[in-house]
């Protein structure tokens, strides 16, 4: 299939050789699991268990009150339930710092595994062919499935778009463009038939004639495995896309595959397309065919400071330190530890932090890999412009945001920035550009909220004014009426008096 030109992007050294040859391994049960109640975009779940409760593997332990378990219908709230990753006892429900740059505390449920690791009672397997759209989406919702490419958007809510838009293509994102990460690559090489089954289920749910599975052209083995698994299935094909960052950004992937651009501020569904990750398809397969909720994910542990990099199927809630130990620990003190890839990952330093649904990888990078540099002034070299996949002028945005000119920055396209970091990657002045854009977007959000608040206040004030006017009007009307009544009475009296007077006369 002919591909289309996507402007921008960079070619960071991908370092995938560190872990690509390592098959996915299981992880011995850790002594304790720590399950955050907020592992997805949207509303956090609330714990349904209490300290001391015994839970079975796959048991529902967290749910957002508003997240309707029935699912289906357009009222599926944006949230996802949380399940016990293994059987054991609840030992604590605590507020802890979340593995997130905000550093906000979140509710975590601590679980002490009993070692049996047996599934509890699971919902019955569904046959996609005979199940309704609502049943399948409800199953996906109840299984706690979110976008496993790292976006963590609840999958059921995404699939709901079928009810609102006319969809024709499903795009499966296997273009793992972040350096180091090999979790999708390995999953495709090892579990292609299951992924393809999950994709067929998605295709059935969405009722789309066309499925494109996009894989980076360097991941030949993964593409081969997927092709073999697809076999003669109708309307499903593997397409190799150039190895370039950020090819895995869904809007840029769509552009490369179809030549179409998702309009600014819109979702791919504006073009009749929907994008899902290979890991998500795998999770859907397990949820529909076996009734298993999402309790584990594939994680790449890599980086120059890790002794034995590898890929693991990890129970959600496993502490990162446990994985690092499994990989033989650090070969040197890491310069930087990251959750996710080096281009968009989130830094962390606490090895007690748990693996969540969005943890694609754990990296411990050396100084030579991070290449920290001195932050200097912008020399207007223009290197960031051709690097930006969104056609922005990163140096302009930087100047505007650093001068607190948020409005003009928004006009210059700050909202269109996907925070991919391609600009900062090439900047010879080592300006932490993305940090400025994060800040600018945060300020913009505050401004929007401020405007909304002001509007609300104004509306309230207006309403009060209206009410007061109404009251005054009514009061006046009443007075008027009373006056008229008095006048009328007076008149009547006068008339009577006159009559009486006449009578007397």
């Amino acid at each position, binding site marked *: 299939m002919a591909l289309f030109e996507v*402007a921008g992007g960079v070619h*960071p*050294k991908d370092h995938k050789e560190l872990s690509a040859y390592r098959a996915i391994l299981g992880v011995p049960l850790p002594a304790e699991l720590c399950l955050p109640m907020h592992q997805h975009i949207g509303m956090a779940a609330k714990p349904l268990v209490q300290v001391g409760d015994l839970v079975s593997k796959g048991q529902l332990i967290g749910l957002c009150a508003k997240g309707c378990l029935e699912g289906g219908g357009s009222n599926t709230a944006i949230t996802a339930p949380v399940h016990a990753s293994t059987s054991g006892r609840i030992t604590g429900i605590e507020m802890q710092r979340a593995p997130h*740059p905000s550093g906000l505390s979140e509710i975590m449920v601590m679980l002490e595994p009993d070692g049996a690791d047996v599934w509890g009672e699971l919902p019955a397997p569904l046959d996609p062919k005979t199940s309704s759209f609502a049943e399948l989406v409800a199953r996906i919702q109840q299984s706690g499935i979110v976008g496993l490419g790292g976006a963590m958007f609840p999958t059921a809510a995404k699939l709901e778009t079928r009810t*609102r*838009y*006319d969809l024709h293509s499903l795009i499966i994102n296997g273009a793992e463009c972040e*350096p180091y990460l090999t979790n999708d690559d390995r999953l495709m090489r090892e579990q292609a038939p299951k992924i393809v089954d999950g994709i067929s289920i998605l295709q059935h749910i969405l009722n789309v004639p066309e499925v494109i599975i996009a894989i980076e052209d360097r991941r030949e083995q993964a593409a081969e495995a997927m092709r073999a698994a697809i076999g003669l299935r109708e309307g499903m094909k593997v397409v190799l896309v150039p190895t370039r960052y950020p090819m895995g950004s869904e*809007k*840029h992937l769509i552009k490369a595959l179809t030549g179409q*651009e*998702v*309009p*600014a*501020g*819109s*979702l791919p*569904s*504006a*073009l*009749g397309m929907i994008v899902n990750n290979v890991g998500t398809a795998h999770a859907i397969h397990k949820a529909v065919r076996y009734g298993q909720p999402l309790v584990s994910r594939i994680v790449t542990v890599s980086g120059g400071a890790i002794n034995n990099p590898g890929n693991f199927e990890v129970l959600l809630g496993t502490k990162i330190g446990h994985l690092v130990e499994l990989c033989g620990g650090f070969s040197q003190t890491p310069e930087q530890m*990251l959750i*996710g890839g*080096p*281009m*968009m*990952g989130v*830094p962390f330093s606490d090895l007690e932090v748990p693996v969540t649904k969005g943890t694609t990888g754990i990296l411990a*990078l050396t100084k030579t*890999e991070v*290449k*920290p*540099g*001195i*932050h*200097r*002034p*912008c*020399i*207007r*070299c*223009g290197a960031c*412009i051709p690097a930006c996949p*969104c*056609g*922005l*002028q990163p*140096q302009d945005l930087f100047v505007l945001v650093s001068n607190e000119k948020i409005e003009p920055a928004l006009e210059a*396209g700050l909202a*269109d920035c996907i925070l991919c*970091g391609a600009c*900062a*990657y090439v*900047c*010879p*002045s*080592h300006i*932490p550009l*993305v*940090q400025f854009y994060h800040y600018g977007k945060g300020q913009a959000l505050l401004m929007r909220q401020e405007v909304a608040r002001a509007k609300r206040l104004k509306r309230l004030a207006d309403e009060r004014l209206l009410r007061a006017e109404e009251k005054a009007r009514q009061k006046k009307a009443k007075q008027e009426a009373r006056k008229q009544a008095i006048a009328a009475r007076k008149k009547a009296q006068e008339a009577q008096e006159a009559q009486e007077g006449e009578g007397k006369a």
Partner: protein
Amino acid sequence: MSRAKIISAPFTHATTSVPRTMLLVMLALAPATLFSLYQYGWPAIILFFIILASSLLFEALSLLIAKKPVTPFLLDGSAVLTGWLVAMALPPWAPWWIGVLGGFIAIVLGKHIYGGLGQNIFNPAMVARIALLISFPLEMTFFMQPQPLFAEHSPSFMQAMNLIFGGGINIDALTSASTLTQIKVLQFDGQSIEGATGLVGDLQTAMLGALPGSMGEMSALLLIVGGVFLLLMRIISWHTPVAMFASMALIASVAHFFNPAYHPGVLTHLCPGGFVLGAFFIATDYVTQPVSNTGRLIFGAGVGLLTFLIRAYSIFPEGVGFAILLMNAMTPLIDHYIKPRIFGRSKSGEPLASKQPGGGVQ
């Protein structure tokens, strides 16, 4: 500027850095510079180092006054490079105070007055050259035939010190007008320049460098070698130099075709090193040229056109410096109007039309 812990991705970086860029530009300048220093002997060498030293000194002072960290900025190479380019734009045997003044104008007036690295509108080296040219026309057009080191007429180190610091020896015998100056004189006298072009008709001489001129005008060939190196290393983009050469070649050949008695041929315009130096090393200055490639095409074409107009119709024989400064002034305007189209938006910035009735808005 800080080495504060980065708190936001990306946590990896391309091999680019400001010092690396500056270093590569200096490397590219080195062959032409060494050749010039050899050709003009001790006075040129002494002057070269006077300019570098004064540039560094003024940089350090400016940083101190601006309360910026001195060492990292000083080591980023930008001041050395600026000084180097000033040296290339001055006559090789100019007196010491011209050199120091050049360093001062470039670093302080050309750069730090605007707020330092990255903030200036005009190329500092060209600001220095033009300011000196206007203020001291005599000293600034004092060119001589090259006197290679150790050649018969080449001054010894001591003589050179004398020459640069005291102007003590009589070197009138060695002075000579540059080719473009000779042409200018003839143009003013209303004479045909066709006889004069014989002086520069020898393309080989112009390319290899044995013609009188500024330090950097010595050898077009070595400058081109340096320029190609910068293109290959992706330090500069081809847009500015190519647009400059193309517009100059086009205009000059048309003019020459219609009036060969007044307009010299294309090679006379392109080959003296000034134009080449400007195209690869001055006009391509990141800070003062447009940031986009399209903008750079316009910018380069403008420099070519203006250089031609100045050389042909003004009182100045050489026009690259003026032309670059004039286009520098246009850069903010070009940058304002030449912007890439944002992904998912039309040229005018509106979101592209949705294919769905509902719009698919997030």
